[in-house]
């Protein structure tokens, strides 16, 4: 296969990944690494470098649309980014120390968990006493709803902060946005409204990925000719995906995408354990 055909096929596959990622809400990053390692036999370090770049591209590219909706919370995002960026540095450092097989197994398990989380229904909102720490840090906001604005205050700030550190570490180790873990931290632990959690998570993903992308770049894990088709493909696919989103049957799509992710997760684990 020559360089041009390799680039074209890789670009089209990445476009598919970006399209599915945008439609399912899981982001294209989560399938890029399995796609590159399993289908294109790319070394996992190069695959992670390419994936991180596409994660930044989709997050920054979608930002303007999310701002227009008015759900994201800039303070919650910024405060939790301290945890995710520190976590990302630890994760990116671990990548150079941990054997490739271990990265593959952890990746597979995160895929299986993401698939599970994407199809199960979320919690019901429970109002607890306002967290004094949240008030002091001004982790509050107003959610625009049909009938006026609904005021909310973050709960259990330390638990959310800790989970965000974990999300950052996974992002740095695996080159994914770890949107699934970020949403859990904000939605489940901090009890923020679901729309606030998902849109704030999108904002945070780009900053988290940038923290580890720097380390990957300096360590020589970013191959320009490989990142080129992947980044342009994912970006194009996710832009088409977000336009189609209004018309698509989200429930069915989520189920289909979850099955794809389960298959990739099992494949990653088996592939890593048997060393093939």
């Amino acid at each position: 296969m020559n360089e041009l055909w390799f680039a074209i096929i890789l670009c089209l596959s990445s476009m598919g990944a970006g399209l599915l990622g945008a439609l399912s809400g899981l982001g294209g990053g989560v399938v890029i690494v399995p796609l590159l390692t399993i289908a294109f036999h790319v070394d996992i370090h190069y695959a992670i470098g390419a994936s991180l770049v596409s994660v930044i591209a989709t997050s920054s590219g979608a930002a303007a649309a999310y701002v227009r909706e008015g759900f994201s919370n800039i303070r919650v995002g910024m405060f939790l980014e301290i945890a995710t960026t520190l976590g990302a540095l630890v994760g990116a450092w671990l990548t150079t120390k941990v054997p490739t097989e271990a990265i593959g197994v952890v990746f597979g398990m995160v895929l299986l968990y993401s698939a599970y989380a994407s199809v199960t229904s979320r919690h019901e909102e429970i109002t607890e006493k306002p967290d004094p720490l949240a008030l002091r840090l001004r982790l509050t906001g107003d959610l625009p709803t049909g009938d006026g604005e609904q005021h909310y205050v973050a709960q259990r700030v330390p638990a959310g902060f800790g989970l965000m550190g974990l999300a950052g570490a996974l992002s740095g180790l695996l080159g994914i946005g770890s949107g699934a873990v970020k949403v859990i931290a904000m939605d489940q632990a901090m009890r923020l409204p679901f729309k606030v959690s998902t849109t704030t998570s999108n904002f945070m993903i780009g900053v988290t990925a940038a923290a580890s992308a720097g380390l990957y770049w300096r360590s020589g894990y970013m191959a320009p000719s490989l990142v080129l088709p992947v980044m342009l493909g994912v970006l194009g696919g996710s832009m088409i995906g977000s336009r189609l989103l209004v018309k698509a049957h989200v429930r069915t799509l989520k189920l289909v995408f979850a099955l794809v992710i389960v298959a990739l997760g099992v494949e990653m684990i088996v592939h890593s354990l048997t060393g093939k």
Partner: protein
Amino acid sequence: MSWNDKRIETWVGAMLQTGVLLAATIVLAGGILYLTQNRGPRADYGHFHGEPQQLTTLSGVMHGVEHFDARCIIMLGLLVLMATPVARVGMCVVGFLFERDKLYVLVSSVVLVILLYSLFFHK
């Protein structure tokens, strides 16, 4: 219009979109140049061997861009892309300064320092 969080976000959202478009344009231009220069068998990505130093330092990349090196032009586009979230945090520092919110000037400065450390000082 007074300074509030919504205004910061709108400002930042527009910057991020511009940054991504600029990065994609540079990467595409470098890519076209790369594919016209390299028609042979594809490079080996199956084994990790690390990229040459020319591609892993800012001065190396800039030097290559001056000589129309396709890989360096692609890398420049990727660096512009990686800089968009950093610029976002930087703009938030300024936005919170205008809001006179000392706590969040501090919080966003911490994030900015972590990002700059990862990009330029860590090795």
